[in-house]
């Protein structure tokens, strides 16, 4: 017997993600899913953002990590509410992990919730976690062909942060090439070259956050 099915394989995750989205929407929280390869500087970028915008916004972080709680400790040191999810080897966060973490947090006054995904440019792209937007961080030491090698993550992202631009003089990375690849996959992707360490370019990223929080609140 042949049975025609046509069902999305990850429909169960999509349902949890929709449930999370409703919950965040009700509280008017801007939720951003941060993705990158290991070492691209997600945590450093978060530390800078949490520190610099501390007086403007109430921010919280859900930290995905394979094993340790080092990242959550670094983030919590800025004063932000942080909770750790250890995936114990799992290569991505999914909706139910984020739901479990969110249920343990006090989200009532939160303006922005950052979900720091597991360092990986492949798997996290397939799993929604109730975010408003996916943000991909690519560091210039990784090579400008990454968007072409891992197309889905860039095709799904609203913003691409090109991190570690302070190292541009030492590496063979073309901002234009990386931007063009990303734009060929996602027409309206916003691209900000930054250095989370020296703070170069971070103002444009902060402006984007301010704009999005405002949109969220007035929605």
């Amino acid at each position, binding site marked *: 017997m042949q*049975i025609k099915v*046509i069902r999305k394989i*990850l429909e169960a995750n999509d349902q949890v993600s929709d449930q999370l989205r409703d919950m965040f929407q009700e509280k008017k929280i801007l939720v951003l899913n941060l993705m990158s390869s290991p070492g691209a500087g997600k945590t450093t970028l978060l530390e800078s953002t949490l520190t610099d915008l501390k007086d403007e916004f109430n921010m919280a972080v859900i930290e995905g990590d394979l094993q340790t709680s080092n990242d959550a400790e670094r983030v919590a040191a800025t004063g932000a509410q942080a909770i750790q999810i250890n995936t114990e080897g799992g290569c991505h966060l*999914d909706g139910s992990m984020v739901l479990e973490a969110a249920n343990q947090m006090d989200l009532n006054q939160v303006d922005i919730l950052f979900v720091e995904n597991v360092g990986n440019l492949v798997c996290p792209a397939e799993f929604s976690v109730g975010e408003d937007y996916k943000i991909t961080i690519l560091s210039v030491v990784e090579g400008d062909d990454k968007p072409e090698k891992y197309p889905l993550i860039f*095709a799904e992202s609203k913003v691409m942060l090109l991190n570690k631009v302070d190292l541009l003089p030492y590496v063979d990375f073309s901002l234009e090439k990386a931007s*063009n690849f990303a734009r060929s996959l996602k027409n309206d992707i916003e691209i900000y070259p930054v250095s989370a360490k020296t703070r170069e370019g971070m103002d444009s990223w902060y402006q984007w956050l301010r704009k999005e929080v405002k949109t969220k609140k007035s929605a």
Partner: protein
Amino acid sequence: MHEMSIAHSLVGIIKQEMDKHGVTKLLRVKVKYGRLSAIVPEALETAFEAMTMDTELQGASLETEEVPLVAKCRECHKEFSPEGDLMIMTCPHCSAEFGHEIISGKELYIDELEAE
């Protein structure tokens, strides 16, 4: 290796569909995945085999089929399917290079199954 999570969800849907249609032996299942999706078919096949081992689904074959990437040109609005690598997605109609809209190629779904 998120193929394990995907195989897990896949098995869940297969069981639901088999119950719904009153069948007990799965022979074949067909999955379609977009060219842009992050799926390695061999890894999914291995994960499916591991997931079904020593269960009532053991021995069923998993077929995978890639859904081609289709983009719509931002300049001339015609659709095209980029061949070869995705380094430069040049529109064959008007030669525009960037900013095309992705029409298909991100899918991941179970298409059909054969069971008795």
